[in-house]
């Protein structure tokens, strides 16, 4: 099943494949001050082309989530400038769907209610949103759990529910912070390929943070490898593999080549 045929009540935004969805220049992020200051990120420049799929990999604690929160408009950078579709980025946007690293579901609400949260906040037509929510739940194998509370779901199932919620209002841009982190290899592959197809159909912009290099390459147009904290960009190369991609893509020589390159960078110290 594909999500390409899904539509919400709102007019589906036209895929915007021109220009930059996000443009960061000279971004740094320092948490705290004085002795306790933590330099988490940057300096870093990054432009994410509208309609592209960018994968970010890097060692734990290097500032990936920090980067995502900056792009989401949830935090502001210590230095530097950020643009979203050419306008100053200084806060969250309803055109951006986020899957947080810690799923964040409301424990008092059912899975369906959780997934429909954006529709409720945006006052979208109830029936259409419900239909879309149910289709998303079906696609992610959660249909039977629509009326369950989150505590009855496994970690991976909660992540899938959070994924559905991020997609509900059909956002222009998707920010995904290890959305498949707690999933088993098979579900993970299935969901990520579904995401890949969905992204291709809808022409949305996506930024995926993952610790799985193969997943990064399989999904992305471009892979960014970050250095240890403070996170900077060590490698930023296009993934020139044919689409649509599937399980066999991982066997292509070019795939293996990119994988070796990224892996090498993650596991060798920087020398400069």
């Amino acid at each position, binding site marked *: 099943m594909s999500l390409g045929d899904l539509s919400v009540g709102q007019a589906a935004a036209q895929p915007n494949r021109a220009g930059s969805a996000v443009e960061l220049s000279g971004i740094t992020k320092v948490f705290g001050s004085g002795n306790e200051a933590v330099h988490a990120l940057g300096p870093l420049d990054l432009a994410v082309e509208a309609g592209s799929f960018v994968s970010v990999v890097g060692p734990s604690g290097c500032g990936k989530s920090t980067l995502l*929160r900056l792009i*989401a*408009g*949830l935090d502001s950078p210590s230095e530097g400038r950020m643009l979203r579709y050419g306008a100053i980025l200084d*806060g*969250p*946007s*309803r055109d*951006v769907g*986020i899957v*947080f690293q*810690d799923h*964040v579901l*409301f*424990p*008092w*609400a059912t899975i369906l209610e959780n997934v429909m*949260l*954006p529709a*409720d*906040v*945006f006052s979208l037509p109830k029936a259409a949103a419900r239909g879309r929510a149910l289709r998303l739940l079906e696609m992610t194998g959660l249909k039977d759990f629509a009326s369950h*509370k989150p*505590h009855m779901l496994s970690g991976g199932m909660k992540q899938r529910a959070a994924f559905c919620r991020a997609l509900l209002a059909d956002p222009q841009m998707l920010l995904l912070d290890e959305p498949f982190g707690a999933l088993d290899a098979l579900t993970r592959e299935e969901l990520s390929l579904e995401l890949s197809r969905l992204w291709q159909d809808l022409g949305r912009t996506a930024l995926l943070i993952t610790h799985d290099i193969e997943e990064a390459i399989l999904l992305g147009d471009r892979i960014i490898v970050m250095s240890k904290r403070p996170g900077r960009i060590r490698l930023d190369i296009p993934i020139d593999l044919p689409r649509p991609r599937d399980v066999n893509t991982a066997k292509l020589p070019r795939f293996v080549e990119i994988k070796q390159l990224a892996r090498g960078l993650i596991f060798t110290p920087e020398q400069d």
Partner: protein
Amino acid sequence: MTGASRTSIAQHAITPAIYLALLIVWEGSVRYFNLPAWVLPAPSAIAITSKEWAPELLFNSFVTLRETLVGFLIALVLSLPLAVVIAFTTTTRRIIYPILLGLQSVPKVALAPLVILWLGIGNWPKIVIVVLVCFFPILVNVVAGLESVPKNMLDLMRSLRAPESVVFRRLRIPIALPHLFTGCKIAITFAVIGAVIGEFVAAQEGLGYLILISTAQSQTPLAFAAILLLTLISVMLFYVVELLEKRLVTWTP
């Protein structure tokens, strides 16, 4: 009968069994030591007196219950909006919180004569004392609840650009609800105490008044019956609140 169900019956029977044993020990010692009824009445004496005085006991229970409930509900209605104001505006908090803290630190028994001086000796002074006693635990807990929203949930709402009214309805209220019930459970037991304090200071009716006059006339069995009824009311009200909580709070934080 299986072993498992036998132990579960034993578990259910153990509390009543212990109470029954205590009653028997009580009855036995009063008879054995020949204690006069005005010092410590035997359970049987209390039962006989209760039956004799049943109409008075019931009427005064009703009076005390009414004061308790009305006071509790007024406290609830007053503290909820104030809690919202305190949780959201730092200036109000800075001005109001010290006053409330001061008010809370004054022993309510000390305030009771003043309240009666101002309000006379109807039902209202007692209700006002109940309100004073209940108000603070509810307020403090609801303020804490409204403020204990996890940051990641607020971030989620912020990422959706949810207006504060939606954040309040969809996030703060559900989070604050268990705290509200914690406050209510404390307040409802305080409420009964508050009502009795009021009745002690000035009243013509209520279980507190009944205790006061029956001990003054050495009618100790009647005082005991009234005390038992007070305990019963207190415990019953607590369980009603807990039942409501189980109905409304179906999730664990």
